[in-house]
C-alpha cells in the first residue's frame, strides 16, 4: 500500500482531477496485482497529461488555432469549411494524410526513412512527462526535470537529421545539416539560460509543492515570476527555443522558399503528417516549459487556489504559443550565417554575462539575508536585472556593430531625370 501511495499520492489533489484517479487506483489495487496497477497508473497519467491536456489543445489550438490566427493576420479566413468554424479541419487533415500515397524515393534508405518520423514523435510525448499540471499532478516528478527536458529535447534533431539524410536529396541534406548546426548552436545559450534559473532557485525540479523544492514552488514562495527576475534568460530562452523548433524567423532548415522544405522534401503522407503534427507538439512543449519556468507554471499569485491549476498552465502555454504564431506570421527568415553569428557572438556572451550577474547576485543575496526568507532583495534584483538586461542587449549589439540609425529606410527623391546621383558624403560615411 505504501508503495502504491508513492504512485498515487501525485494524484490526490481535488482540483487536479487527481482524486478520481486516486480512487480508481486505490480500488484497483485491491483486486489486481501491483505491477498491473502500476502500468495502469502510467496509462492514466499518459491519458491525463497528454491525451486530455495536450493533444486536444494541440489539435484544436495548435493546428486549427494557428491556421486561423495566421489566416486572420493575413487578412483571410483560414479553415472554415469542415464542421462549424472549421473545427473538424485537423481531423479531416489527419484522415487525408493517413490515406495519402506514401512515396518513397528509389534512392532512399527506406528503413531509416520510416524510423525517422517515429523517433521524431516519441520525444514530443516524453517531454510532457515532467511538466507539472498542478502541485501534485505531474506525470513523473523527478528531481532532475530540467536536465531531463534538455536531454529529451535534443533527440528530435537527430531524427530530423537522419530523416533528411535518408533520402539522398540535396535539399534534404542541406536541411539536415542546417537543422543540426542550428540546433546545436542554440542549445548552448539555451542551456546556459536555464542554468541561471537553476542557479537562482537552487533546484532542478520543475514543479514542487508546499514542502518540496521546485521552480514553480520557488516562484510561489517569492511571489514573483522568474521572467521579471531574469528577463535576459527568458529572452535567450525564447530565441533559442524558436530556433530549435524551426519556427520563423529561424526556419532555415525547412526554408520553403530556399531549399524546398529541407529535410521534409521527400516526405509525404502520414510520415510527413507526423513531422508536421509533432512540430506543433514540440512548440507546445517548449511553451509549457517556458510557462513553468519563467511564467510561474500552474501558480497564479494565489488564484490557483480557486482556478484549476491545469487550466492556468494551459492558458499560459497557449499565451506563450501565441507569440510563436505571431512571430511566424510576421517575420522574415534569417540566413544561416546570421543565425550562427547571432547564437555564438550575441546570445552566448549575453547568456554568460547573465550567468555571471545571477551568480554575483545570489552570493550577495545569501550574504545579505543570511539564508532568511526575504522578498525585498528579490524585487531589488528584479529591477536591477531588467535594467541590466536592456543595457546589456543594447551595449553588446552596439559592440558587435549594430547601427540602426545608419540605415536609411526611405529612398531619396529627385525631381529630374539626370543620371547618377551620388550619395552625399556624410551619409555614405555612416553606411
Amino acid at each position, binding site marked *: 500500500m505504501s508503495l502504491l501511495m508513492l504512485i498515487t499520492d501525485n494524484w490526490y489533489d481535488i482540483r487536479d482531477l487527481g482524486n478520481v484517479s486516486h480512487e480508481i487506483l486505490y480500488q484497483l489495487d485491491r483486486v489486481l496485482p501491483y505491477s498491473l496497477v502500476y502500468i495502469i497508473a502510467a*496509462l492514466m497519467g*499518459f491519458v491525463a497529461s497528454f491525451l486530455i491536456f495536450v493533444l486536444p489543445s494541440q489539435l484544436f489550438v495548435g493546428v486549427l488555432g494557428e491556421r486561423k490566427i495566421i489566416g486572420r493576420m493575413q487578412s483571410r479566413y483560414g479553415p472554415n469549411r469542415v464542421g462549424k468554424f472549421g473545427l473538424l479541419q485537423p481531423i479531416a487533415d489527419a484522415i487525408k494524410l493517413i490515406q495519402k*500515397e506514401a512515396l518513397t524515393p528509389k534512392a*532512399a534508405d527506406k528503413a531509416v526513412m520510416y524510423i525517422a518520423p517515429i523517433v521524431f514523435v516519441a520525444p514530443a510525448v516524453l517531454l510532457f512527462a515532467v511538466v507539472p499540471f498542478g502541485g501534485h499532478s505531474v506525470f513523473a516528478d523527478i528531481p532532475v526535470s*530540467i536536465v531531463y527536458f534538455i536531454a529529451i529535447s535534443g533527440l528530435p534533431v537527430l531524427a530530423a537529421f537522419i530523416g533528411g539524410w535518408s533520402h539522398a536529396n540535396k535539399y534534404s*541534406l542541406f536541411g539536415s545539416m542546417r537543422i543540426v*548546426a542550428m540546433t*546545436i548552436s542554440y542549445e548552448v545559450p539555451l542551456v546556459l539560460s536555464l*542554468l541561471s534559473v537553476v542557479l537562482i532557485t537552487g533546484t532542478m525540479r520543475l514543479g514542487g509543492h508546499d514542502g518540496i523544492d521546485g521552480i514553480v514552488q520557488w516562484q510561489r514562495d517569492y511571489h514573483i515570476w522568474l521572467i521579471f527576475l531574469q528577463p535576459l534568460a527568458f529572452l535567450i530562452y525564447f530565441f533559442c527555443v524558436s530556433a530549435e523548433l524551426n519556427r520563423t524567423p529561424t526556419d532555415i532548415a525547412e526554408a520553403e522558399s530556399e531549399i524546398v522544405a529541407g529535410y521534409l522534401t521527400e516526405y509525404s503522407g502520414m510520415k510527413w503528417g507526423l513531422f508536421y503534427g509533432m512540430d506543433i507538439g514540440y512548440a507546445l512543449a517548449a511553451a509549457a516549459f517556458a510557462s513553468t519556468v519563467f511564467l510561474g507554471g500552474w501558480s497564479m499569485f494565489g488564484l490557483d487556489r480557486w482556478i484549476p491549476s491545469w487550466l492556468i498552465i494551459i492558458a499560459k502555454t497557449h499565451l506563450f504559443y501565441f507569440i510563436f504564431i505571431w512571430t511566424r506570421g510576421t517575420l522574415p527568415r534569417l540566413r544561416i550565417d546570421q543565425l550562427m553569428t547571432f547564437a555564438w557572438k550575441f546570445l552566448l556572451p549575453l547568456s554568460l554575462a547573465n550567468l555571471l550577474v545571477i*551568480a554575483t547576485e545570489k552570493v550577495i543575496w545569501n550574504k545579505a539575508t543570511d539564508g532568511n526568507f526575504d522578498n525585498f532583495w528579490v524585487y531589488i534584483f528584479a529591477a536591477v536585472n531588467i535594467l541590466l538586461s536592456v543595457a546589456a542587449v543594447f551595449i553588446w549589439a552596439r559592440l558587435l556593430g549594430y547601427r540602426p540609425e545608419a540605415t536609411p529606410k526611405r529612398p531619396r527623391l529627385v525631381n529630374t531625370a539626370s543620371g547618377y546621383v551620388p550619395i552625399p558624403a556624410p551619409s555614405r560615411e555612416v553606411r
Partner: protein
Amino acid sequence: MLHDYGQIGILVIISLIFPLGAVVTSWALRMVNVRPDVPSNPVMTDTYECGLRTEGPSLVQFNFRFYYIALLFVLFDVELVFLFPWAIIYDTMGWPGFFEGVGFIGILCLGILYAWRKGALEWR
C-alpha cells in the same frame, strides 16, 4: 524515486506505439486498397530536384564549418555536466563557489575566444 522513471519508461513504449499506430494504419489502408499500392507514376519515386534529374552525387562533402560548430557544442555540452551540480549547491558555497565556477567558465571562454579569433565562428 525509481518509480517515476519506471513510468517514464512505460511512457517511452506508449510514445513509440503512438506514431507507429499512425504509420501502421496508413499501411493497413494500403492493404485494403483505400490508398494506392504502388506509386502511379515511376517519376514520383524519383528524387526531387525541382522537376529535373539529379545532377551529380547527392552526398557530397560539406563545409568544415559545421564541424567547428559541433566541436564548440561538445565543449559547452560537457561543461553543463559540471555546471548543473555547481548551480545546485551554489547556495552553500559563497564566494569560493563563485570563483570556482567563474574560473571554470572563464577557461572555457578562452576556448571560445580562441575559436572566435581563429574565425571558426565566421560562417563563410
